[in-house]
């Protein structure tokens, strides 16, 4: 379900996001404070932070492109590399580790044919994998956050169902 809205073309803010971004900026006494919420929205829209938007964004908020880059590289949910249409965060921290997160990750890597530690994306661009630190969902360990959906009590046997569900929901 790729639309032309998903393509970055340099103009900032992109027309369809302008109103939303202006509203975010209005929440703060300084424009730069809107940087992280806006980057999160861009990440969601384009599955990465497109290079061609960095200068425009910096100008829009009144900071430098270097500052924007510095922020992008600090936060794990922001990425300069394009992620899959479905991006899976697989928790690996202790509570999940104790209940089999390692096996879940291996099953996913095998099923999708990609490695989490290399930031790989499936050749069709559908899926990418990343290990995450505690997702704050430890009562449902081991757990996965993908496309804003939570999957708890995951087992190596149920990862296939998760992939199917994500596929059926589209992007």
């Amino acid at each position, binding site marked *: 379900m790729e639309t032309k809205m998903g393509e970055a073309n340099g103009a900032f803010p992109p027309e369809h996001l302008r109103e939303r971004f202006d509203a975010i900026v209005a929440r703060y006494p300084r424009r730069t404070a809107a940087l*992280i919420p806006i980057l999160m929205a861009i990440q969601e829209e384009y599955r990465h932070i497109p290079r061609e938007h960095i200068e425009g964004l910096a100008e829009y*908020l009144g900071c430098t492109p270097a500052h924007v880059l510095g922020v992008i590289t600090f936060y794990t949910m922001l990425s300069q590399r394009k992620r899959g249409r479905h991006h899976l965060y697989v928790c690996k*921290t202790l509570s999940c580790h104790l209940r089999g997160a390692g096996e879940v990750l291996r099953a996913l890597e095998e099923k999708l044919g990609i490695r989490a530690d290399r930031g790989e994306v499936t050749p069709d661009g559908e899926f990418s994998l990343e290990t995450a*630190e*505690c997702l704050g969902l430890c*009562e449902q360990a081991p757990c996965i956050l993908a496309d804003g959906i939570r999957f708890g009590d995951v087992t190596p046997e149920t990862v296939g169902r998760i992939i199917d569900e994500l596929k059926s929901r589209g992007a």
Partner: protein
Amino acid sequence: MSITERRILLHGIDREDSAAIDTYLADGGYRALEKALKEMQPSEVVAEVAKARIRGRGGAGFEAGRKWGFLPKQNEKPVYLTCNGDESEPGTFKDRHIMERRPHLLLEGCLITCYAIGARTGYIYVRGEFPHAQAALEKAIEEARERGYLGGDILGTGVSIDLFVHTGAGAYVCGEETGMLSSIEGNRGNPRLKPPFPAVEGLFRCPTIVNNVETLSNVPFVIREGAEEFLKLGTEDTPGTRIFCVSGHVERPGAYEFECGVNLKDVIEYAGGVWKGRKLKAVIPGGLSAHVLLPDEIDVACDFGSLARAGTIMGSCGVMVLDETVCMVRALQNALEFFSHESCGQCTPCREGTDWARKVVTRIEAGKGTEADVDKLYEIADNYEGMGGKTICALADAAAWPVKSYVTKFREEFLMHVRQGRCPLGG
């Protein structure tokens, strides 16, 4: 002993519509706000909260009312409230329950607090991995605005307060209060040197109060029922209830609210006890940062003071239970992968030390360590533990406590890895 939950913060969360404003209003919601705004001076609200001695639920246990008292008396600048919903201490998921299931309780707490401290604006910082909590709060803010509890001229009192959700983007250190302020300002989440403390110079260099989600969610009860009623709950040391996040090897992991002072052993039993009929090996009582406890150390009351006397911390109340099959070397490796990854890198002892410790424990885990490595591990942690003011923030301490306690209490297990050249548990 069997114990019972005392749901005040988590009141009614089993209901489908627990997050709706009408549900909240039917339970007496927003009456405390009305009372504060119409019948109390801001200073009286501060005094009532101070009297209740609500200790900070973010982990450090500092009394909220006292913190509010640190705001400068003479001040021309705007004052801000920033609510800490970063909830990234591993093993912790209590704030998520409040934000998702009882968002209006948190909003009411924030609104009363803003009134008390003279803030016109409050930001609720919610970690990026919590889209559901963000959506629940955004929706609740709209509902509260429509009903006149938030925004301009609240309930016709002339008081105006705005609350906004600010999303994080993935970084544990943004839970540290000054890291969070950096993040709200649109920067890398680097913690800042204190002093100045946020109450004096915080967000946008203005006086700022930082409180945890659960801390602020106690405020409506204190104002509505009075500090005396709050003090009847819990212990002298830690009044009130706390939400215990039980995870790991128990039959029924979950968020359970008890009065403070509840016995740790009973909390674990309440969560179904150790799963699969196995034996208990260790308990981490206050989030991953906490010093580990042995099975014969868990007959302890859960309040800040008692757990400190037991040599650990109450912290974020994230209770992680480890059964007999767990390899403590592997567990420490897991913890150090976390801390070394999350160190922001500003301070050399923290940046280099956590990474060095991670490498050493990895070596031991792989059966390639030496006996000297085991002592080395302790020494490294002892060196980066920032108590002496060696680091900007307490992440370094948080990363040192697991190392020092696991190595000390499970020394034999670490040495066995060295002597046998492999994990003695077959892990």
